């Protein structure tokens, strides 16, 4: 028996932490070649997100978790996800008042008075992971692209920082990282979802308003959810084929 106590404890720890197939995959991840992990095939997945407006309480948990998980700078303007608060006067639907103090990172302070007749609701925003994404089409150096499993990613080693993609995104989801001067954006927690975890924002959402979905998995509850609810995407007129599906999205939301 050449397995010593240390090796046994390591193996046992890994087995408890990550059972079965995940243990196998972990060895590849640690070895720096996660693509060769046996239990993740990119073409078997087509990732998207469900956001349920009716459940969003504006806690800002998702904004904080996203910044912590993805090392996003804390400065104003650098967000991979943020929460907007809409205040709509029912007599003037064309001019909703929208605020998002620090992206909702510190939560929201009260700005109205109860019974002032305004319709108020929270809208979490993020990269819409478009199937036909405008931002990847304009990149001159192939630094941003759609992965085989449908996630829009940025290759920081190739990005020149030309900002074409920042302007091309109709949802305002990209920013320039002030440390590297390269474009950055939501990766749909690609480093998590390819290991069987959910995104950081879905993980910490206290009401389950955000859910990662795999549209290629026939057992994913997303199919029933889209069938059973009145679903909308942002700016469908731009034909971006967004994969972030909103339930309860008000028509005034831009």
């Amino acid at each position, binding site marked *: 028996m050449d397995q010593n106590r240390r090796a046994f404890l390591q193996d046992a720890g890994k087995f*408890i*932490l990550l059972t079965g197939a995940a243990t196998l995959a972990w060895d590849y*991840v640690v070895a*720096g*070649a*996660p*693509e060769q992990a046996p239990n993740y095939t*990119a073409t078997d997945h087509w990732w998207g997100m469900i956001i349920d407006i*009716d*459940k*969003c*309480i*504006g*806690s*800002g*948990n998702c904004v904080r*978790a996203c910044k*912590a*998980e*993805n090392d996003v700078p804390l400065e104003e303007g650098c967000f991979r996800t943020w929460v907007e*608060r809409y*205040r709509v006067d029912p007599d003037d639907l064309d001019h909703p008042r929208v605020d998002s103090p620090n992206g909702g990172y510190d*939560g*929201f302070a*009260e700005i*109205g*008075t*109860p019974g002032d007749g*305004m319709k*108020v*609701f*929270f809208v979490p925003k993020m990269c819409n992971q478009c199937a036909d994404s405008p931002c990847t089409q304009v990149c001159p150096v*192939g*630094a*941003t*692209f*759609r*992965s*085989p499993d449908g996630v829009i*990613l940025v*290759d920081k*080693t*190739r990005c020149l920082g030309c900002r074409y993609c920042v302007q091309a995104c109709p949802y305002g989801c990209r920013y320039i990282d002030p440390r590297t001067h390269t474009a950055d954006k939501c*990766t749909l927690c*690609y*480093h*998590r979802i*390819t*290991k069987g*975890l*959910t995104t*950081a924002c879905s*993980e*910490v*959402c*206290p*009401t*389950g308003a955000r859910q990662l979905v795999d549209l290629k998995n026939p057992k994913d509850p997303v199919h029933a959810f889209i069938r059973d609810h009145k679903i909308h995407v942002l700016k469908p007129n731009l034909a971006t084929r967004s994969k972030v599906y909103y339930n309860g999205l008000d028509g005034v939301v831009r």
Partner: protein
Amino acid sequence: MGDRFHHARHLLRVGAVLALGFVAFLFARSALVPSDFGVYGYYRAGALNDIRALPIAYAGRAACVDCHEDTYDPPEPEDAGSAKHPALGIRLDPAKDNRHSKLRCEACHGPLQKHIDDTEKDVPKVASNGLCLGCHRLLIGRPKDQPQVAPADHKKSDPQKRTECVSCHKPHWPKTDA
């Protein structure tokens, strides 16, 4: 004859410059474009691996429950709510489930992958009023089924007791009789 050759030499010179330029272009291209560029599309295939290899901060509830099963599912108080399903071990009526049952651990305790790598590090923080009020402060726009409180009014009714949320509300079993 000599004239024609003389003119051809001009063309050869131009051709040589062009050929040299083309060779220089091929050389520069092979040096500048990564070898795995274009395997899946107009991008560097290795970027997928680079992004997958980024470190994780939030470990996920499954990792927490491995060690802390009794914390997550503590001994039930008398008023725990409706009966448990005998086989599934879950509350039959989720509305009466007196737990923060929809919450994942790290929604309140913060990112804990470092704690999982080394249990001495980043010991989970405990609840503070600010943490509770982040979700439960009365705020226009919050869904009506979200339990909300106006701290000032709540304190007024019993100023002695109502200073710390957790002195009455157990964080994992937040409902009280009061």
